[in-house]
């Protein structure tokens, strides 16, 4: 069992497992979350959503305990006044307008001025202009922002966001990312799940990586990057003289192997940066015309699988 610890934790998971029949969705996860943005990273199906649902008390853990500000959210509902969840599902109360939806959430959170709080929250996510439009007519990205506004309307201490950038365009993405970073800087606990590494990298101070329901790695983003730099990369190079280029490449110790397939080389390299530096010079000196260089097998899933199985 791996432990991901933090100073002054607000959320503590101890040996949390959750299975559905024979399927283990989350396995023996112990982790702590505190002030700042923590990225929960993992490929689709890694168990991130299940973990967040356990963490918020939406579902029970099969084993282990969850503590939010020292309380179990399933037995002490008062902690929900300090938590907010932006669920992954895009479903909302589509028969309500954005303002009605956010104000409704404010009322359930017992906010003193629900309409004023709703206006401020909608302004924060740039939805003021469409506040009176029904959510049924919203795009996925707009719904996502409405959900974020509904979650932030009571200014929670803990914000849990399950793939919050799904469906948003680059401008909205940058805007929401800035909001999450600011909340982390204000000392709130922000937990953001994503399957996209660079998304998390942009906003998270700390990353917890999950694969197959298990905790695969934890630490700062640079530490995770460093761990990932040891991964042998498969790179495809298309050129007009593949055999000649292959012969030149295999002489270098940073090339682990070469396969030739018609006009393509598939190179296994332990140092992609070195390969990138050497390739143009080699091609020029041997008069080889390179038409394509692409990394292969660089999915987050393969990276995480390496982190889990390769150590």
């Amino acid at each position: 069992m791996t432990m991901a610890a933090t100073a002054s934790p607000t959320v503590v998971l101890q040996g949390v497992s959750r299975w559905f029949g024979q399927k283990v969705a989350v396995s023996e996860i112990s982790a702590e979350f505190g002030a700042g943005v923590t990225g929960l990273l993992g490929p689709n199906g890694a168990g991130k959503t299940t973990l967040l649902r356990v963490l918020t008390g939406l579902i029970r853990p099969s084993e282990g305990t969850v503590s939010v500000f020292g309380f179990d959210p399933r037995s002490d509902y008062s902690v929900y006044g300090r938590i907010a969840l932006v669920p992954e599902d895009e479903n909302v109360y589509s028969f309500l307008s954005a303002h009605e939806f956010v104000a409704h959430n404010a009322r359930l959170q017992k906010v003193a001025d629900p309409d004023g709080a709703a206006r401020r929250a909608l302004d924060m996510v740039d939805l003021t202009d469409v506040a009176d439009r029904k959510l049924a007519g919203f795009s996925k990205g707009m719904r996502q922002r409405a959900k974020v506004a509904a979650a932030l309307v009571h200014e929670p201490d803990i914000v849990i966001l399950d793939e919050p950038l799904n469906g948003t365009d680059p401008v909205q993405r940058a805007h929401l990312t800035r909001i999450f970073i600011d909340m982390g800087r204000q000392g709130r606990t922000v937990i953001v799940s994503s399957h996209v590494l660079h998304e998390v990298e942009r906003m998270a101070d700390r990353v917890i990586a999950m694969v197959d329901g298990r905790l695969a790695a934890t630490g700062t983003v640079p530490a995770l990057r460093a761990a990932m730099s040891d991964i042998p990369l498969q790179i495809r190079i298309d050129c007009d003289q593949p055999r000649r280029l292959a012969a030149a490449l295999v002489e270098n110790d940073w090339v682990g192997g070469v396969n030739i397939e018609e006009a393509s080389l598939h190179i296994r390299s332990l140092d992609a940066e070195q390969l990138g530096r050497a390739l143009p010079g080699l091609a020029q000196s041997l008069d080889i015309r390179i038409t394509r260089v692409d990394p292969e097998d660089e999915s987050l899933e393969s990276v995480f699988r390496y982190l889990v199985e390769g150590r």
Partner: protein
Amino acid sequence: MNAQLAIIRVTLRRLITRKRMIGFILFASIPALVVLFASTGDRGPERLAELYHNTTFGILLVVALPVIAIVNATGALGDERRSHTMPFLALKPIPRWSIALSTMVASVGATLSVAFVGVGLGWLVAGFATGRWDIGQGPAMAALVAAIGYGTIFVPIGLLTRRATVIGLIYLFLWESSFANAVAALAPTSLGHIALSAYVDLAPGLDFADSLGTLEPGAGKALIKVLVVALVSLAFTTWALNKRDLA
């Protein structure tokens, strides 16, 4: 507006959609339409009153209202779970019993809004046709009893299973319409028969009073019985919200 009223309002808006309401109201208005059509003929007030009671009981109270109530009750919390909007309701600092009570009030309210139109129209048409303005008391009380009974007991079932509506319809057509009708001793287990006991109390001398089985006519008793059913449902729903997975 407090949190409970906010839940009731949003649940009502989810349950009372325009298309659904038009369908439900047409369904519930069949007795009124039948009496209206019949009143254009040469039937006397006694026969029109008999027709009114037979259609109100046979269509509105035995079929339309229970089906409408089951659809509303199973959707009150069940739709939140099925459409993945439960986090917007459950992850709030509100006692679970309060969430359960609010959704039950909305479920009963949604059914009563249809019953109000169906029973009210029938009462109006029958009142004009027969000249007896007390004719709608029995149906109105029976509709209230049925709406509370069916409208609360199926709320937790909707939360616990996706097949709640089918279970409700099986209960309605297999248990109530078949077993509880065939075996007199089973009548007290049937919400429809409890509603009928309220009806017969306020509209004595009806042919279908024989269907009461071992139940005695009594509007007050019927109301108390369904309020007990509602309390048990409230406790069960609160337990389910506390102990079961909500996503």
